[in-house]
Structure formats: C-alpha cells, structure tokens
C-alpha cells in the first residue's frame, strides 16, 4: 500500500529540487549590474507612481467581504442541487427517482432554512447601508 504513494514522493522531491535549483542557479550565474531603472519595481511597463502602501477606502474591503459571503453560498448550493433527489426521499432512490409516498420536505426545508439565514444577513447588510457606494 505504501508503494502507491511513491509517485507523490517523487513529485515532491522533483518540485523541491526544481524550486531550489532555479533560484540557486540564477544566483550563481547572474552578473549583477544594477541601474536605477532596473531597480524600480515592475509595474507592467508603467513607471511606478508613489508608494504602494497607500490608504484606500474601507468600502473596497466591504465589497470583498460581501463577495465572499455570497460566493460561499454557491459552494453550499451546488452540492445540495446535485443531491436534491436523495435529500428529498426518505428511502433509497429507485432508478433515479423517489418511490411514491416517500417524498419528504427535508431537502427543500434544509435549503429554505439556509436561505432564510442568508436573507437575514442580506437584510442586515442592506439596512446598514453597506450596499451603497456613497
């Protein structure tokens, strides 16, 4: 059984040697001739303007947070959708569908509870004015 993990070990070794090797080789072979232009940070070809450590509005942070919350929602909904039939059936599925009389409210109810909780969060965010840019 242990042998099945051998390729992973090899890959790990290769990655390590490769990563260290590239950095070490470039350090050993390079010729250091710095100029002021070379020393400036790379900004996709545009000359850099000012310091990178600049204050920016907390609004961006808010948008990022809201994005994560509503993004995570999808992470839960997709597996739920894939298993909806199984969740709404009190017995095992017969040929991919639920036998008559065994259909339950559980699958739908579960998602409804989740959606209500999410809705409460959404209403809170909305009422607090986090969705308004100004």
């Amino acid at each position, binding site marked *: 059984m242990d042998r099945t993990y051998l390729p992973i070990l090899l890959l790990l070794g290769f990655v390590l040697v490769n990563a260290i090797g590239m950095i070490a080789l470039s350090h050993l072979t390079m010729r250091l001739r710095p100029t002021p232009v070379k020393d400036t940070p790379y900004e996709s070809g545009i000359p850099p303007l000012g310091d990178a450590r600049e204050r920016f509005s907390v609004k961006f942070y808010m948008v990022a947070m809201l994005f994560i919350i509503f993004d995570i929602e999808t992470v839960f909904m997709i597996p739920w959708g894939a298993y909806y039939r199984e969740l709404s059936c009190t017995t095992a599925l017969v040929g991919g569908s639920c036998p008559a009389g065994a259909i339950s409210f559980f699958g739908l109810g579960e998602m409804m509870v989740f959606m209500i*909780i999410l809705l409460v969060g959404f209403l809170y965010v909305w009422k607090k004015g986090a969705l308004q840019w100004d």
Partner: protein
Amino acid sequence: MRLLALAGFAQVEAGRTLDLSDPASLSFAIMPELVLCAGAMVMLLVAAWRPEGAAHSRRVALGSMVVALLSLVAVLFMQWQGHAAGPGPIAVDGFRWSSDVVFLLATVIAIGLSMDYNTREGINAPESHVLVLLATVGMMVMAGARDLMVLFLGIETMSVAVYVLVGMNRRSARSAEGALKYFLLGAFSTAFLLYGIALVFGATGSTNLSVIGGRIGALSMGDSPMLLVGIALLLVGFAFKLAAAPFHMWAPDVYEGAPTPITAYMAAAVKAAAFAAFLRVFIEAFGHLYESWHAAMWWLAALTMFAGNLIALQQRNLKRMLAYSSIGHTGFLLVAATAATSQVAGAFLFYLLAYTLATMGAFAVIIALGTGEHPRERVEDYHGLWTEKPGIAIAMAVFMLAMLGFPVFGGMGFFAKWYVLQAALDAAAPQFRLAIMLVLATTISAGYYLYVVMVMFMKPRPEQATPLPVVGVMSRAVIYAAVVVLLAFGVFPDPVVRWSRNGTELRPAMPPAAALPVPLGR
C-alpha cells in the same frame, strides 16, 4: 407531516431516548440552540432596522436578554424531561444542559454589563449584544457536540463572533490590537485542532466520539502513531482555546484590550465552553488511552497553575491580574481533568458556576467604577474604596475570596476547590502531587487576591482621587445578585451539588456488542 411532529414537541413524554437520525427528533434535541439562533436573527434585524442610538441599543440589549432567558427556559425544560439520545452527532445529557445553564447565565450577565459599559464608552453598536447571543449558540453546540465536525462548527461559530466582540471598541488601539492578536492566534490554534481531527479520523475512520471511543476500546489502538499525534494536536488546539500555559500568551493582551464586559464573558463563558468540549472529547473518545495523554495533561495542569498565579502577583492592572488569575483557574480545572473520573464533570460544573459568578462579579465592579476618562483598571484606583462605596467594596472582597477559595466568606468558591481536590484524590489514579501543587498555587494566589481586599479596606483614599461615578443599574444588579448567590450557596451548597451531579457523568464510550468494521490502514 414533519411540521405536525414539530408542533407536537410538548407532548413528548419524559425520559425518552431520542432517535437522532430522524430530522424532527434531532431538531428537538437542539431546541435551545434553535431558540437562541432564531432569536438572535430577529434581534439582528431589529438592530439594523432603526438608526443607531443609545436608546435603541438598550432596546436590543433587553431583547437579547429575553432571547437568552427563553433559551435558558428551553434548556431547563430539556433537563427536566431527562431525555437520552441514541447514536448521533449531538449528546443529550445532563452535562450538556448544565454547561448550557452556565453559558446562558454568563450571556445574560455580559449583555447586562454591556448596556452600562457601551452607554458610558459611547460604543453605539446594538449588534454587540446579538454577537454575544451568536457566540453562545456556538458554545452550546460545543458543550453538546458528540462529533468532531460538530465540535469544530461550534468552536468556529463561537470564535468568529468573539473576535469581532473583542474589537468592538473600534476607536481604541488596544481593542484593535487585542482583536487582531486573538484572531491570529485563534486561527492558528484552529489549524492545530483541525489537523488533529483529520489525523484522528484517519486513524479511527470516524469523527463521532462514541464510535472513536468504541473502536479505540475494541482494537486497543494505543500504539497507533497517527492517533497519538492526532490526540496531541487536539490537546494543543484546546490548550490554546483554554489559555493553558504554555499556550496562554495571548490571553492577557486580549483580556486587557477587549471591552470589559466582553473580557468577563471570555474569562467565564468562552473558557467554560472550551473546557466542556475538551472534557467530553478526552473522556468519551480518548478515555481508553488515559495512560497515553495523562502525562501531557499533568504537566499542562502543573505549569498552568503556577504560571498563571505567579505572573498574576506581578500585575498592577486589575484586568490583567484577573486574566492571569483566570489562567490559574484553568490550571485548577485541569487538575480535575487529569484525574478523568466520572465525578470530574460534577466537580467541573460546580467550579464553573462559582468561578463564573465570582469573575463576572469582579469585572462588573471594574465596569461600575470606571468612566470614560478614568477606566479605573489599576489596583491603586481601589485604595480606600471602603470609605466611599462600602457596598461595592464588600462585594469585591467576596469575589476575591471566592476566587481564592476562602471558606464561608468566599461562599461557593471554597466548595469549588474542595470538589476539584476530591475529584483529583478519589480517582483510580489519585493525583497526590497535583493536589499538593493546587494547594500551593492557591496559597500563592492569596498574595494578589488578598492584596486587592487589603488596599480597599486598609489604605486611605488618595487626596487627588477623582470622585467615583454613580453605579449603573445593571452593574449594581449583577454585583449584588452574584454576591447573594455565591454566599447563599456557600452556606447551603446541596442544591448546586445535586444540579452539578445529576446525570452529568462522562464515561469512555464502550465498543458496541456487534463486530466492528476494521478501519482503513490497520
């Protein structure tokens, strides 16, 4: 049909064994948590619906207290009914209900104290009360979790809410520093915990505590390195959450930075919840491997007792002193945990109630005497308190003596220490050396508890001292109620002893009679 079954909850006869695979029974088993969750969401909407203001904040606080009390009624109802549960992700036993009572009590006190504190400090955040409720939901899930995944869910629900609460005073740099430190170390400890859970799952093939305990018992897995490393990582993760030495460094800074009611809440309830989950995991799931983890726990207990109490001697800031004192108390409770008998849970719950009342009372005094310009967190601020506010000075003395474990005047505190010692000495493997250390550490703690009492009664009030404020209604209620309860149950401890021992025993899970499937990798 399910809805009808849900409506029929009240007719469930007492002492039934709930089948947790049925959604309706499972919902019934987590009814107090559901009540609290639903109430918290309603209060969140109430908090958001009106513009911010002190009056609105008070309304939300009162509403949140009502929600916590409703949940408390649900807990007491469940405890009175005395149900048991079949195999499942959540335990239905006295230990869970009794722990929940302590958490909810601490919640009500913390919200009450926040009302006074937030008005005074100008923290206009009605959400803070709702966050306390949500943190309590996590705690109650932790106390009941019989599955490592459910436990993890509870820990996260609690921790995320508390991270925010610590930083609630957003104009204070201290508060922000505390919140960031707590967040980073909390995330760090969660990683330990999660890795431990993964390894335990890998070794035993289950995350359910009963199944893990059963398999460990049946297969005598004491030599499995994966399992032992998993247990060690879980121990480290829990030690961080408990603030046990040498994993306690974050506690004083966070306790000092957090708004004082939240500090009280953390010192009492957050610690209690971590302990409840810790005890259940280590006794129910790993009880058969006592020999393997006993030594680690022994050192943790010994180090924590001495580190907490010795460093507390150095402190001149009362909040920091109480933070280190709470580390010391963690050590005392770990002594009981090291004994790991079925009595431990009873001793733990009694200690918890006494400690919660004394700690929250002491923090209530700090809140009551502080003002925006003069936080009055230094010991010097308490010089001669007796001459200005005799009632508060006596109350503070009772809290200090209760934490010290002084007989009669310390009320329940004395019996709390007594039962912990008894649990440690009556165990199958008696902890004589730890018991001696506990007494020594308690003697050390007298050095700072009695110092506070001494300065209040024997030092003169400094001439240039600014006049003390009028004590807020809620702080006053909390302080005197805590004193009365501590002293009354210190004289008549029987009801609390019965409450703490009624059906609260934790036992290592026994392997089921049927043949077990052999987990992978063995």
